[in-house]
């Protein structure tokens, strides 16, 4: 993933085989912007260290949420300035964007948990898949007596189950 302008435009990667791995990477953030989980399956290009990458990703999502809500042509609510934080549930929300080399899918829970999954560009609608992943998070992380809310996720059961599930997404 390249955030800054390289002039080179790479062609689309080949479509994955039936048994191939379609997931590139996944992030989970909490309401405060803490990166609870970074999981990587296929990421050939890397331009930032992990901490900067996670901050940049969170900032991207924050800005996209704000931008899409401000652009909403159907809402009559007073919108304030671009970048002004919104109340939970206020305004519309986006669920994905696509480039020629990848697709980013996004989901946010009422509690502020944000799940980001980056996949092959030809991936279909992943909204139900992200809901299922959120369900895995509740079952294997929130219900784990050893897990402290707000801390990075270190649950082998969750990682294993997540890897198996993402491998099957197409």
């Amino acid at each position: 993933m390249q955030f800054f302008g390289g002039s080179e435009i790479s062609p689309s990667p080949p479509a994955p085989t039936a048994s191939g791995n379609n997931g590139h990477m996944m992030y989970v953030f909490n309401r405060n912007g803490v990166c609870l989980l970074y999981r990587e399956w296929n990421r050939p290009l890397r331009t930032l260290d992990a901490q900067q990458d996670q901050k940049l990703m969170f900032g991207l999502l924050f800005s996209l949420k704000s931008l899409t809500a401000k652009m909403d042509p159907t809402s009559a609510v007073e919108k304030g300035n671009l970048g002004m934080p919104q109340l939970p549930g206020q305004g519309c929300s986006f669920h994905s964007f696509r480039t020629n080399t990848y697709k980013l899918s996004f989901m946010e829970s009422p509690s502020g948990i944000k799940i980001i999954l980056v996949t092959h560009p030809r991936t279909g609608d992943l909204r139900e898949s992200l809901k299922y992943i959120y369900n895995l998070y509740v079952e294997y992380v929130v219900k784990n007596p050893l897990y402290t809310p707000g801390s990075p996720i270190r649950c082998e059961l969750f990682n294993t189950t997540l890897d198996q599930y993402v491998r099957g997404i197409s």
Partner: protein
Amino acid sequence: MVREVSESCIDSLLTEMVACYCNRFYANKPELAARRIEAIGYQVGHQLSERYTMDRPRFTDHLEAIKFICKDFWSELFKKQIDNLKTNHRGTFVLQDNKFRWLARMSIDPSTENVSPVEDITSPTAESKAAQAMSMHLYFPCGIIRGALSNLGIPCAVSADISNLPACVYLSLSHNLEKTF
């Protein structure tokens, strides 16, 4: 009429009970915390066995009571029966549950821990911390079983061992045959 309780509420309550006794009330006295948690379990087991034997005739011998614990009592609490029951015919029983419900969500990821030499010396590793937490969580079910059997006329001692994750739990019951004859 069947009454139901949200399992998430029970799970959270159990987690918080153990956390309170281990990290707050007896933060530096794990032995005292264990005894308190077991005592709570004993009282709960005492009451539950009264409730779950309400419609049953009296047990004719100890083996019948222990089979009740393995089948009906375990199903009421953990939604499945004990997987294996063994005895040495001298008062000791081993009950094996291959996927103990109350530990099924307990998990760490040892591969991501940064275990440095200094940390090795000054603090337990993540794995041993997890093992401690798991054993603390087992005092409550041990107390439940001891309380239930005591109420059914079988005073006993109950201990637990963990084999691997997802949790395979062995509960060991032993009681004094001479005392009961």
